[in-house]
């Protein structure tokens, strides 16, 4: 069996690119949900509406980027660990300046504990967004195709 490693590598890169936006959104919203008063936008309590909006828009963008639904779904799953990693990195940022609000070794567990709702919520939202994104992409393409053919 002949495997085209170059094509596989490109495929992995493409999935990573598709999952980038949902992962960034997950990292950001998880961090925001933990420290709503010390992040952006500043609020006394985390806004569920804001979290849902950011996650949904990001997952739709990810879905638009995907060529196939299967890719979009894989990217939606991959966004979970990537997003968690982004959230942990955000919580670590003060330690890069030598400042510690939390014991560094406990940061991942702290994030996992207090952002569990956002992490769990992101999974179905990413799947839904992937489907919606795919529909939008197909619609845009079918509109553009007649234009191209008429040239």
């Amino acid at each position, binding site marked *: 069996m002949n495997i085209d490693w170059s094509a596989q590598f490109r495929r992995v890169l493409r999935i990573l690119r598709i999952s*980038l*936006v949902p992962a960034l959104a997950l990292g*950001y919203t998880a961090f925001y949900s933990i*420290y709503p008063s010390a992040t*952006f936008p*500043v609020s006394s309590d985390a806004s569920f509406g804001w979290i849902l909006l950011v996650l949904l828009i990001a997952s739709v963008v990810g879905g638009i980027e995907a060529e196939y639904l299967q890719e979009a779904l894989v990217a939606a799953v991959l966004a979970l660990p990537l997003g968690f990693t982004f959230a942990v990195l*955000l919580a670590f*940022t003060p330690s890069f300046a030598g*400042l510690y609000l939390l014991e560094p070794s406990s940061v991942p567990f702290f994030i996992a504990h207090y952002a569990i709702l956002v992490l769990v919520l992101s999974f179905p939202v990413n799947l839904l967004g992937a489907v919606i994104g795919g529909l939008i992409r197909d619609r845009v393409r079918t509109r553009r195709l007649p234009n191209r053919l008429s040239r």
Partner: protein
Amino acid sequence: MNRADRGASGEWPFAAVLAASVAVLVVFMGLSVANFVSVSQVHASASVEATSSVGYLGLASDGTLPNNGTARAWVNVTVLNPGPKALVFDTVIYKLWIEDLPHEAGFAVPRTDVPVPNANGTGVRWLFTAYSGSNTSSAVVVPAFGKGTVPLRLDLREQIDLRAFVAVQNITGFAVSKGASATAVPWELFILTSLWIDGVPQPTSPTAPIYQIAVGRLVLQQGTDFEH
């Protein structure tokens, strides 16, 4: 090149949406990090410097404190804030102990003192709590990269706290009887103060975790609370 490889790269509107989304999220994350780091900076760098002095009003001609006299303590609680966010004083808890010289000299005293080991660890000092209380919501502001002070003037009279006044009267009287002045008696100060970080709202949800309250609240301490 198959269909997937052509992918979105060949379709600039999709790539533009992706780039714009990444840019917006990176900006959100950048703003979040900037705010979070500035709050962390305040937590890490703010410090308290409290000073106290005790004077006696209406001293008798022999230097003792009469029944109608007043022991007045001036406590200045200064918070130094090298951080980029302003602070607002919430509560200042203070305790001032007077060294119970008659007790240390071996006299039986009718009051409850706190034993504190000497600095060199060889003996025990006996301290009496003369002032203990708190000052809340003074709302004094400590500006960013600045300092702010809550000045406290604490009066101890017979009418205010008989037990403490009598103790201070006895201790200062003992010092005078030994040829020293009343003001020469040593005092120990303990300060515990809390401040709110300006621009960090407190959670309104009753189920908010404790750490969310702690993020916007700074607790600073000076001295030792000998009673704990």
